[in-house]
C-alpha cells in the first residue's frame, strides 16, 4: 500500500549500497529467503535451523533435528515447508506451522544440496487434505512430493517422499554421448575409454528447472546435464568449463542459469524454454548459450557463492579470502558495486526476492550481514504545506486567498464539494497473478515465548571493562538444549515406528 507514497527515486534504486543490519543466532552457514521475502531461513554449524522474520529481524522459529552443519535450504512455494540438508547425511522436511518434521530421509553420504520440486508440494498444502492427513500421522497418499539431492561422492538422487517411505531414484551423472548410428561399429577400446571417463563424473549440483519437469545437474568435470524428471534420463549434456561446477542457480524467470565453477569464472547461461519440449522443440535442438562470464582478471579471485538479484538483472558474488561482495549488472556485464562492511570473508550470499537487499553470512563469526538502501526522510512529508523545490519559486497569491467568509459558509461549501463516490472496500486487483499465490501464502505463527538468547551478541559483560564469550549452556541456552533433547527423542521415536 505504501508504493503510492514512496519517493519514486527511492524505488528506482535496485541494488543495495549500505550495510544496515547484523543478525545473529549461532554460527550461520547457509541462508535462503522464502518466496515472498518475509522470512530468512538460516542453517547453522550446529545443525539448528533458524527462521528469521525480516520485518522484525527477530527469530521466528528454531528447528532442531540435524546434528551437523546445514548444507542447503529449500522453501516450498507457499512458505510453509522447508527442506534442509545437512552433513549428517540427512534431509528433513519441516512444517513451519508447528515446527514438526514431516519427513526425514537418510542417505549414505553427506548431502551437498537438496532442492524441493518447485510445484508439487504446492498441491498438497493448498488442499485441506494435507492437514487431515498429517494429523493422522503420515498415513496418507500425497500425489507426489519430490526433491532432488546431490550427495558427496555419491550418485545424485531424486527422492519421492509422498509416502513415509522415501523412494530414491538415482540420476545419471555421465554426460549424454552421441548415439552410434545404425550399423556403425563401435570400437570397443573407445567405448571402454568413454565408460571409464564417464565413471569419473560425479554430480555436485542438482536443481530443478522452473516447472520442475527437468533437473539441471552440474558435474565435477564441468558438464551441465539436463535430466528429465519423469524418466530420470539425460536428454542433453554440454561442457561448460573445465573446473568443477560448484553452484548453479536459476533466476526467478526460469530462463537464466547462473553457474559458479572452480575455474574462477561465473557464467550466466540462457536456457531454452524446456516446457516446449516434445511440442515444437526436440531435445536434440537444446542449446545452452553462455551470455556473460564474470571474473576478476586482475586479482584472479575465486568466488564463494553467487546469486541472482530478484529480477535477474544483477549478479552478486562473495569472494574467496576477501570481505567484498561484487555486484554486476547483466545487460552490459559490468561491475556496478562492491559492497563492503564486515572485516571477514563472506560465505553464502542471498538477494531478497523483492527488495534491494542482500544478505550474506560471515565465515568466521557466523553473523548474517544485511545490505540495503537507506532513503532519506523527505521533509516535505512532515508538513503538508511544505514543498521541496529545486530553486526559488515566486509565490503567486490567489485572487481569493485572503477573502474572509463566515465559518459556516466555508464549512458548508466544503461539505458540498464532497461529492465523490469513494470505494473503501475493493482491493486493488492489479497484481492478480501474484495474488493467486499469495492468497494461500503461509505465515509462520508468532510465538511469544521463543528463546532468543543467541540472537543478541555472544559477548557478555562479566565486569567493568571485561567481556567474555557466552559459553554454551548459559542461561536460556539450557532451555534450548532441553528442547533439542526432546525433539531428538521424538524423532527417534518416529524412526522406530517406521
Amino acid at each position, binding site marked *: *500500500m505504501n508504493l503510492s507514497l514512496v519517493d519514486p527515486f527511492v524505488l528506482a534504486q535496485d541494488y543495495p549500497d549500505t550495510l544496515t543490519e547484523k543478525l545473529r543466532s549461532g554460527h550461520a552457514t547457509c541462508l535462503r529467503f522464502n518466496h515472498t521475502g518475509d522470512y530468512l531461513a538460516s542453517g547453522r554449524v550446529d545443525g539448528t535451523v533458524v527462521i528469521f522474520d525480516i*520485518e522484525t529481524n*527477530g527469530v521466528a522459529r528454531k528447528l532442531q533435528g540435524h546434528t551437523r552443519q546445514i548444507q542447503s535450504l529449500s522453501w516450498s512455494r507457499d512458505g510453509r515447508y522447508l527442506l534442509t540438508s545437512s552433513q549428517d547425511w540427512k534431509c528433513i522436511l519441516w512444517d513451519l506451522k508447528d515446527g514438526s518434521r514431516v519427513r526425514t530421509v537418510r542417505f549414505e553420504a553427506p548431502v551437498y544440496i537438496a532442492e524441493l520440486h518447485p510445484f508439487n508440494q504446492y498441491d498438497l498444502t493448498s488442499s485441506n487434505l494435507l492437514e487431515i492427513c498429517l494429523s493422522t500421522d503420515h498415513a496418507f497418499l500425497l500425489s507426489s512430493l519430490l526433491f532432488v539431492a546431490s550427495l558427496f561422492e555419491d550418485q545424485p538422487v531424486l527422492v519421492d517422499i509422498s509416502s513415509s517411505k522415501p523412494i530414491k531414484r538415482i540420476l545419471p551423472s555421465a554426460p549424454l554421448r552421441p548415439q552410434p548410428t545404425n550399423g556403425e561399429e563401435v570400437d570397443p577400446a573407445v567405448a571402454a575409454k568413454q565408460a571409464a571417463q564417464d565413471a569419473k563424473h560425479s554430480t555436485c549440483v542438482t536443481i530443478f528447472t522452473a516447472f*520442475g*519437469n527437468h533437473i539441471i545437474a552440474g558435474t565435477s568435470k564441468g558438464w551441465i546435464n539436463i535430466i528429465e524428471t519423469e524418466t530420470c534420463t539425460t536428454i542433453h549434456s554440454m561442457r561448460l568449463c573445465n573446473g568443477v561446477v560448484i553452484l548453479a542457480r536459476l533466476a526467478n524467470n526460469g530462463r537464466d542459469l547462473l553457474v559458479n565453477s572452480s575455474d574462477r569464472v561465473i557464467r550466466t547461461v540462457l536456457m531454452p524454454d524446456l516446457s516446449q519440449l516434445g511440442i515444437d522443440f526436440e531435445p536434440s535442438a537444446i542449446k545452452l548459450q553462455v551470455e556473460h562470464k564474470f571474473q576478476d582478471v586482475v586479482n584472479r579471485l575465486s568466488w564463494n557463492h553467487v546469486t541472482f538479484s530478484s529480477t*535477474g538483472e544483477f549478479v552478486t558474488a562473495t569472494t574467496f579470502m576477501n570481505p567484498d561482495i561484487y555486484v554486476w549488472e547483466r545487460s552490459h556485464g559490468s561491475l556496478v558495486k562492491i559492497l563492503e562492511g564486515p572485516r571477514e570473508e563472506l560465505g553464502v550470499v542471498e538477494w531478497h526476492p523483492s527488495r534491494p537487499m542482500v544478505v550474506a553470512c560471515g565465515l568466521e563469526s557466523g553473523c548474517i550481514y544485511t545490505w540495503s538502501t537507506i532513503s532519506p526522510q523527505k521533509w516535505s512529508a512532515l508538513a503538508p504545506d511544505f514543498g521541496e523545490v529545486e530553486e526559488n519559486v515566486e509565490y503567486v497569491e490567489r485572487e481569493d486567498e485572503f477573502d474572509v467568509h463566515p465559518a459556516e459558509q466555508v464549512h458548508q461549501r466544503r461539505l458540498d464539494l464532497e461529492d465523490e463516490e*469513494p470505494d473503501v472496500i475493493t*482491493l486493488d486487483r492489479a497484481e492478480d497473478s501474484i495474488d493467486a499465490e499469495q492468497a494461500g*501464502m503461509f505465515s509462520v505463527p*508468532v510465538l511469544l515465548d521463543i528463546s532468543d538468547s543467541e540472537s543478541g551478541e555472544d559477548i557478555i559483560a562479566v565486569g567493568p571493562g571485561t567481556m567474555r564469550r557466552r559459553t554454551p549452556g548459559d542461561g536460556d541456552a539450557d532451555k534450548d538444549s532441553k528442547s533439542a533433547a526432546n525433539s531428538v527423542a521424538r524423532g527417534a521415536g518416529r524412526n522406530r515406528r517406521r
Partner: protein
Amino acid sequence: MDSARSRTRRRESRDRTPVESSSNELAAGPEVDESKLRRGSWSNQKTFTPKRQKHEAREYRESESSDELVADADDYWRGSRNRRSRSPIDRHADSSSNDRSHGGSDEDRMSNGDETLAPGRDDMSDRSSTPAPSVEAPVKPERLNYKEKFVLRGHLRGVSAVQFSPDCSMIASGSADATIKVWDTLTGRLIYTFEGHLAGISSLAWSPDGQWIASGSDDKTIRFWNVNTGRAHTKTFEGHHNYVYQIAFAPKGNILVSGSYDEAVFIWDVRRARVMRSLPAHSDPVAGIDVVHDGTLIVSCALDGLVRVWDTHSGQCLRTLVHEDNPPATCVKFSPNGKYILAWTLDGCVRMWNYVESRVIKTFQGHVNKKYSLSGSFGYYGSPDVKHNPPLAFAVSGSEDGAILCWDIVSKNILQRIEGHTDVVISVHTGKLNGKRMLVSCGLDKTIRVWEEAPEDQEQNGAGASPVEVVTETIVQNDIASNNDEDGDNEMVDAPLDPSTTETTPALTEDVTMT
C-alpha cells in the same frame, strides 16, 4: 450515570420494536423464559471453545513484493504448459484455479452459514438478491436496522475499548477499572477477566491469529493475555514514558504499534517484547493509531491535529494530513482496502481522507464529540448475498450523547442512530458471526452492548427479536456498582461468578496470573 434500570430510552418508533424493553428486567417472566430457551438452543448450536478453529487468511495484495517479471514469466510458462498435458504440473494449474475460487472474501465464506443458522434472514435475501442476475443495480438500503442483542455488565467503571476477536466469536473489553474482560459473542457469557494492569485500560487489540489480546494502559505498559490459556504473557512491554493511548497489530501479528501520551509512536517486535523503532511522531499526545491491511503503512494522529502516515519498514513519515481548522485528532482508522483514512476530531466531525492526495473527501457529522477520544470503525451493509451485490460500506462512531451513528460512506447520510447507552459511547466495533452482521459498543455507562442487524420486515410483523438481556453474574455486580456508585468504583471487587459460567469456562479469573 443512571443505572440501566431507570434509564429512559429515547427511540424512534421506526427503529424499535414496540415490545417494552428495559431488557434487563429479570422479573419479566416470559422474556426470561424465552431468553433461557434461546440460551439453551445456542449452547446446542455451539459449545464454546476458546480455541480458534482456523486462521482465516486475510485477502490482500502484498503490493510490496509484486514482482511483475516473475508474474509475467509464470503466465508465460503456464500458458505454454497447457499445450502439453501429461506433465506433473498440470495438477498445479488445476489446484491453483481451485484456490482462486476458494479464496473468496470473508463475506463470501461467512455467508455460507446463512441458510443454516439464520433462517430469519430468508425474506431479506429474497428481497434483495434477485433470483436471476438482474440488469438493474440492486436497491441501496436507506437504513440500517441494528437491534440490541445483549447488554454486558461487569465492568466497574467506564469501558474504554471493545473489540471483536478476528473470528468474532469473542468480544474483548477494556475498562478504566484496569481489567480486561472477554465475552462470548453468541451467548454474552463472561469467559475471562484479566487483571494485572495498575491503571485503566485505554486500548486493546486482538492479535490476528486470535490467540492474544494486547492491552495498553495508563500504567505505561502494554500487556499480552492469552485467550486459550487465560494467562498473562510473562513479558510486559515497557518503554513508554506516559499513558499508552492506542495500540494496533500489524496483519501478521509480529509487529505491534502503540501511540502514547509521551508523543511517540513505538513499533514493537512482539516476539521479543522490545521496541524496534521509536518514531518521534508528534508534538502532542498520540491519540490514535492504525496499521493498513498489508502492514506497510502506519497512521497516527495526535491532539496537535496532525494525522501522519508512516512507512512501517523504514520508519519514515510519508504524509502529513492537517485540516485547516486544526482540531485535535483523536482516532484514526484505515479503510478496509487501505486507500482512505477515517479521522475523528474534537470538532464533532469524522473526516475521511484520501491520503495520497492529502484531501478530505467526506465529512461525517451528527454526533457529539468535544471531549472524549471516540473511536469507531468501518462496517458493511446491504444484501447478505455478496456474490451478486457487493456489500456497501458505512462508518460507525459513538457519540457523547449516548448514541451510535452509522453513516453511509458515499452519501454521508445517517443510516441509523442507535440509542441505548446512557452515557458517552467511547468505542464501536463491527463484526460478522454466522452470517449476522454485528456491532459492539461500550461507553462510560459501564456497559458493553451487542447489536445485531435485524431484517427490516421483522419489525413490521411485530414478532421482532426482543432484545435479550443476558444477565450473567453481573446482576450482583451491578448492584455493587450502583450502591457504591462513582466513588466505590476504585474498589476492584472480583465479580462473584454465576455457577453456570463456572461450569463452562474452566479457567477463570483465579487462574489469571499477575506478573
